[in-house]
């Protein structure tokens, strides 16, 4: 068996399982559905481990599966690019996917769409693997849209819920806005480089470095700035950066396992992965990198603040995801691509863990997601409690936890960056740490500590939630085992792998940094001693104190030591702004979408029907009809009319001839 066949197993085994389960899932037992898909993803996981093993021993290569089409002088192929970056992504994707598959067996046990769900998540694994394994922009776009499709299907999984089917349409359309950028970037690349293969494009990049292109009249921009910003707009859609972030909080309408898999750990990081993969292009445009830095920093801080006021357990974690994606984006902007990937990896573990643990809480609470109804759950769900706590500690950046290493390095590299906007980004990220600690602690305390609020609740939701006499139970083992398996890397993966991934030359073949101008990351590399010392040093940094402050404030508020007067003018304004999510949804739905529909009605009723049809099409017909009525007066059948006309005719003819 050749290598390409082994690599092909990773995406195509889940695809095959997905098709079989999708077509025949309802005809066989549940074991068929989850057995087949889980086994296929398990197989993919082993292939990924094998791939990581050989690439970390120096293997890298390109493989072509088949030629998609050829036209004119262009050819488009489907193929794989296997290197360290690909292999790492494959491991992260397949591992989280495997955990989610196992978890789902328990979580979706009683859902009528059981096999449909498994079919979808296996299909997702296929599309995501095609995306990360691609060796060209076309296949990247295939995977990109493929994961978007599955995300659409899964957000709307419970198709009877009006909010769910609103959210999935919104997610797809907002992503499509980003895709316009991505596709245009790809179009420019094809035109200027004559190929969509990564290696060919990278090879030809240097030659076009100072190329300018004219956009309007004499106004010209650097080719690479334009291409990179367009590509990044695609990433803004998928990785939910401001202002294209609006779909992600709503995507929480989908079942919790996919919030973990798609909307936290893997799909939303596709944009981060893409920029890292295309680092040779992004390194050529300072403008684009500044743009990325500023967008990322803004997302990190604004979305972090949003997390503080949410009362839905999943929405808190969703805003946290948005904020963390902002951190990764900043890392990309300051040319620390490998750090972004590092944070992507640690985040994938602890955020998947948080979501799955939250899902476990939601089952325990009988599908009540409001944290104001929870409390003291640690007593009833110990495994969920411990794993959730570990995930939260990793998220807020407690020294020695995985999240600490990745976040600390992002903040440090941003501090040393010279790029325009990096100072702004640095302070935003540092303050972001405070808000991360604040919302995480608030969430943790409200859910797991305090009084059992569902027992004293006045307004009862009839469908969901516990009645005051019920208590939550710890979830079954298929649910808790993935939690434990995810908790382990959430705690240790940073400590274990930082030396290899960031300080060593693990990514040197996959990621290009222009060392001449972007020195910040190499400064960090030089300062680094070992993970233990870094952990100790972590107790003395500014972010650490902000984190403590965040925890303290959250605790004080929760224990009612601080009373915030919610009716005062300042808090009311702040709350208004935050509750409307800074007005993005309002702008999109009340203005943009509405205007577009007005415009459509105008074009249809006024131009198409009124102008074209009424005047230009039916107009002549009507005119001829009217003329015919007039002209028929010449054909009355009365001889004296005819005689009269003949005499007039005779006169006219005579005048005419006499003139001659």
């Amino acid at each position, binding site marked *: 068996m050749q290598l390409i066949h082994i690599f092909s197993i990773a995406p195509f085994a889940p695809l095959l399982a997905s098709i079989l389960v999708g077509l025949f899932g309802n005809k066989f037992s549940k074991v068929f559905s989850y057995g087949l898909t889980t086994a296929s993803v398990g197989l993919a996981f082993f292939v990924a481990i094998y791939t990581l093993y050989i690439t970390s021993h120096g293997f890298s290569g390109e493989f072509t599966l*088949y030629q998609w089409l050829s036209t004119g002088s262009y050819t488009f192929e489907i193929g794989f690019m296997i290197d360290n970056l690909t292999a790492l992504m494959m491991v992260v994707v397949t591992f989280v996917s495997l955990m989610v598959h196992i978890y789902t067996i328990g979580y979706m046990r009683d859902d009528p769409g059981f096999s449909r769900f498994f079919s979808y998540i296996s299909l997702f694994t296929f599309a995501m693997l095609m995306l990360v394994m691609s060796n060209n922009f076309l296949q990247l776009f295939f995977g990109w849209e493929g994961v978007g499709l599955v995300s659409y299907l899964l957000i709307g999984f419970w198709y009877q819920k009006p909010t769910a089917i609103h959210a999935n349409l919104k997610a797809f359309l907002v992503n499509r806005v980003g895709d316009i950028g991505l596709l245009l970037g790809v179009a420019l690349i094809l035109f200027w480089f004559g190929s969509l293969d990564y290696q060919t494009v990278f090879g030809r990049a240097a030659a076009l470095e100072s190329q300018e292109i004219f956009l309007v009249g004499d106004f010209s921009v650097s080719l690479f700035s334009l291409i990179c910003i367009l590509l990044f707009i695609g990433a803004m859609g998928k990785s939910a950066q401001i202002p294209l972030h609006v779909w992600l909080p709503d995507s929480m309408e989908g079942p919790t396992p996919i919030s973990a898999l798609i909307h936290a750990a893997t799909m939303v990081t596709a944009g981060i992965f893409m920029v890292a993969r295309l680092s040779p292009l992004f390194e050529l445009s300072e403008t684009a990198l500044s743009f990325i830095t500023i967008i990322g920093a803004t997302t990190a801080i604004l979305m972090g603040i949003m997390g503080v006021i949410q009362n839905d357990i999943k929405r808190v974690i969703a805003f946290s995801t948005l904020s963390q994606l902002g951190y990764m984006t900043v890392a990309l902007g300051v040319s620390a691509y490998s750090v972004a990937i590092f944070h992507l990896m640690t985040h994938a573990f602890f955020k998947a863990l948080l979501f799955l643990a939250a899902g476990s809480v939601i089952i325990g609470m009988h599908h009540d997601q409001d944290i104001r109804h929870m409390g003291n759950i640690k007593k009833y769900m110990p495994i969920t409690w411990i794993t959730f706590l570990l995930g939260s500690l990793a998220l807020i950046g407690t020294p020695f936890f995985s999240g600490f290493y990745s976040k600390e390095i992002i903040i440090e590299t941003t501090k040393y960056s010279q790029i325009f906007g990096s100072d702004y980004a640095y302070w935003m990220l540092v303050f972001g740490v405070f808000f991360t600690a604040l919302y995480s602690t608030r969430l943790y305390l409200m859910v797991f500590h305090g009084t059992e609020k569902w027992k004293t609740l006045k307004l009862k939701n009839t469908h969901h939630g516990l009645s005051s006499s019920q208590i939550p139970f710890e979830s079954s083992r298929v649910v808790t085992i993935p939690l434990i398996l995810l908790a382990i890397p959430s705690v240790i993966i940073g400590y274990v792998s930082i030396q290899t991934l960031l300080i060593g030359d693990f990514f040197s073949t996959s990621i290009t940094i222009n060392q001449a101008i972007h020195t910040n990351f190499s400064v960090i590399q030089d300062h680094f001693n070992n993970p233990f010392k870094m952990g100790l040093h972590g107790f003395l940094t500014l972010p650490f104190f902000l984190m403590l402050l965040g925890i303290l404030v959250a605790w004080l508020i929760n224990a009612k030591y601080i009373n915030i007067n919610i009716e005062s003018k300042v808090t009311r304004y702040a709350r208004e702004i935050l509750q409307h999510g800074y007005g993005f949804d309002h702008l999109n739905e009340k203005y943009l979408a509405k205007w577009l529909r007005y415009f459509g009605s105008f074009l249809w009723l006024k131009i198409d029907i009124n102008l074209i*049809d009424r005047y230009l099409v039916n107009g002549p017909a009507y005119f001829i009809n009217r003329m015919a009525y007039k002209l028929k007066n010449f054909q009355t059948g009365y001889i004296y009319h005819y005689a009269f006309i003949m005499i007039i005719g005779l006169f006219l003819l005579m005048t005419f001839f006499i003139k001659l």
Partner: protein
Amino acid sequence: MVAPLTLAIWTPIFFSILLICFTNYFSKKILSAIAISGGLLSFLITVPILMEFNYESVLFQFQEFHHWILPYRINYHLGVDGFSVPLILLTSFMTLIVIFLTLKSEIKNLNYFHGAFLMMSGLMIGVFSALDAILYYIFWEAMLIPMFLIIGIWGGTNRIYATIKFFLYTVLGSLLMLVAFIYLFFEAGSFSLLDFYHLPLTLPVQILIFIAFFMAFAVKIPMWPVHTWLPDAHVEAPTAGSVILAAIMLKLGGYSFLRFAFPIAPDAANFLQPVLIILSLIAIVYIAVIALVQQDMKKLIAYSSISHMGFVTLGIFLLIPMGVEGAYVQMISHGFISAALFICVGILYDQTHSRQIKDYGGVINKMPIFTALVVFFAMANSGLPGTSGFVGEFMVIMASAQESFWIAFIAALTLLLGAAYSLWMVKRVFYGKATNKAVLNLKEINKQQIIILGTLASFVLIIGLFPFLITDITNVTVDNFVQFMNRSKLPLS
């Protein structure tokens, strides 16, 4: 095989005559059998054309030449190249599909109905293979008659208005084309298309000829602003009529641009290119925005068709290989996708007798398999990679970036708009709770319908994943076409 093109044209027409003229001699069952075997045979007979087609040749293949009206040098001259073959196959295949679809339906005078479709199939294949201008013109005009009858007899309530509009719109354009043919006859001395190709013409003459052709073909495709006949025709046409109208009849316009207007007047085409591109872009965006606000599902799909045809014209008018080929793939792909969508709307209409979006909601609860298929086709309609809908759009957007960034930008807006109108409709019709009484009474589609939609879906997937199956057929023809377009035909003086 002897004279495959003649067989491909006249076999369906023979069956059609059988169905129309010998009604009284056969029982209903036998008539159905004749119809389906006629459709099947007509399809099978076109398969060897693809099998034996030589992908490498730039010449017209399977040529048949017989003198017909000698004094005017009008000949029965047939032949095909890469532009014709896929469309011929599509025609015979779609005819088979609509006959299969309506085999057990309760349409009045079903044999006449099937006869009309078989007749039209033969005539359309004639259009795709005629190399003589008059022969082509006869097929082109004759084809209107069965469609006129299909809408006029089996159509909806406002069918008379729709048929007259459809007929007058198209005839007005075609008459100008006839004038152009007659002019070319006096210049070239024959009605042979190959003679027209090599005839030097001055720029003003070329422009006039181009405009004459343009009037005929732009109406057919249709391009903005001569598109308003199509939504009316679709809304009034029976499902099968809409299928053929969208899947094949619109493609006659695109095909004829490639076969007649451009090679005969290449300098005019290059001269008018900016105008043509702007008209195409208007079609893509303007029509997509209109599709967004439609209340009637069939109208929505009709407008979506026009918007997709905008990609076809844009691709052709770019006059570079990737654009032309993308336009061609888009034509084939749209044939499958729009046909499937019209069939889907027809299935709902047959059960509830409403096409209004507001009369539905939550169809998925009653028809899960059907909904899965509709979502698939809606995704294909919004150009999802992996479906055929993506290939053409992708190639045309890539090609337009070579002309100008802004053309590509405007064309790429369809990514958003196409998804918006397709999926918004899906949301309102198929998702949600089923509350409406009509929806609660819906029944899942039967096996026959699953087979039809499933077949169309697999074609959409196959073309999306392996588009080289089509482009390999057209590559040589496209390259040849673009080279020809770059040579001036102006007289040397």
